[in-house]
């Protein structure tokens, strides 16, 4: 079995505080991993390390076969990140933002790719408008286009639903569903029901430690929810 992520004893400390403690798991290619945990459990830290935005203080990982520490630039060519921050320049237009990222990733025929993605996220008619005037939902849709501009094999989602209205959530879900074919996803979420519905694998972090890592088929939601409430110590849902 080919693994998209192989994490071995990944640790991260901020000064004397341990944010992650020897986190190990292997995620097969094409899987959808939902990462759950309370605030400060280390979810975002784990995601930032896997996305090469932070350096681990211990352990190792292979992302799409590349070593996290030694081959970060190769990893970056194959990953995308969608977070609650859209990572879009507010004073550039939608098209200019996507062209910027397309050129940074060396996308061939960037204009055609940008056109295609703007159509997919239903922002073709707003392509010449600056992002500053966009609603939160529109920014998030454009953010999906930004993250998929180079056709990444692995996509990280860091609480992508925060601040979205129900209609925007519906559109966002549709876009993610369409993008799932042939891609691996890792999503950090507080929403247990949504995260569980989307995932093929679930990982629960508590105070930087892995409490659960399991295929969804081997878990039933009720039991998972009970474990989550007990281990994480929060009455979620």
């Amino acid at each position, binding site marked *: 079995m080919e693994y998209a992520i192989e994490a071995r004893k990944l640790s991260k400390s901020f000064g004397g505080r341990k944010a992650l403690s020897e986190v190990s798991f292997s995620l097969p290619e094409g899987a959808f991993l939902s990462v759950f945990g309370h605030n400060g459990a280390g979810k975002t830290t784990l995601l930032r390390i896997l996305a090469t935005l932070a350096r681990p203080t211990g352990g190792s990982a292979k992302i799409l076969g590349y070593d996290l520490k030694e081959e970060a630039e190769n990893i*970056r060519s194959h990953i995308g990140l969608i*977070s609650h921050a859209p*990572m879009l320049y*507010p*004073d550039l237009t939608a098209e200019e933002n996507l062209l910027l990222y397309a050129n940074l990733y060396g996308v061939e025929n960037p204009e055609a790719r940008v056109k295609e993605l703007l159509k997919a996220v239903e922002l073709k008619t707003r392509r010449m408008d600056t992002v500053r005037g966009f609603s939160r939902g529109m920014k998030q849709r454009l953010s999906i286009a930004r993250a998929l501009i180079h056709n990444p094999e692995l996509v990280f989602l860091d609480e992508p639903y925060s601040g979205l209205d129900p209609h925007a959530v519906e559109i966002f879900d549709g876009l993610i569903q369409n993008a799932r074919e042939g891609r691996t996803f890792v999503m950090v979420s507080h929403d247990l029901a949504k995260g569980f519905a989307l995932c093929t694998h679930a990982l629960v972090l508590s105070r930087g430690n892995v409490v659960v890592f399991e295929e969804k088929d081997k878990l039933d939601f009720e039991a998972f929810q009970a474990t989550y409430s007990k281990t994480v110590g929060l009455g979620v849902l």
Partner: protein
Amino acid sequence: MATPSTFRQYKTLLVKDVRQEFRTKEMLTSMGIYALLVLIVYGAALAQTSNQLDILQMSGGLLWALIVFTSLLGLNRSFFAEKEQGCIEGILLAPLDRSVLFLAKATSNLLFLIIIEVIAVPLFWFFFLTTTTPAETFPLMVVPLIVGTIGVAGVGTLLSTITMNTRGKDVMLAVLFIPLIFPLLYACVSATTAVLVGGDTALNTFMLSLVLAAGYDIIMVLLSWVLYDFVISA
């Protein structure tokens, strides 16, 4: 997907900075207004001095004080757009050598500083030097202006990256920036004053100061370039 060329990435980042600034004019407007205000303050401060005051001897220092303080204002804003809406992380996620980001940002800062100098230096001349007679060598002052601005943009870009995430970044940038550029400032003031005042030793002083300033530029800009990966990833 083709391997992105370093030059294409550099050009993309530079065009982005320039396009964004010309669209909002935030940095240029604030630096321009600040430069004008400093000139007004200079005017008020020097208004009561006697006629014996040789403004020509002071002009190099006054001009460089204007440039340094105006630069600080601009450099403080140079990563504002990157911080807004997490854009810096979007850029750092791309497969790009961090030094390309440094070069692009330093180039755009240099460009904006030169634009301000093109406006501020003639104004300075108009306010303070029209009643005096500068030496014939005065056109050479362009050289220390360019060499000095390169150093200010290079070191300033590195320091504004370091202070981008700190609390009280405005003060922090000034505290780091002014001591670090002191040798450059000293050399540029000396070279500018020499060509404005003239005299037998003016060209010698000018050349010596210029060599010092250029040496500073080469060492500090290279050092900033090399250290940038560590600084931006910290």
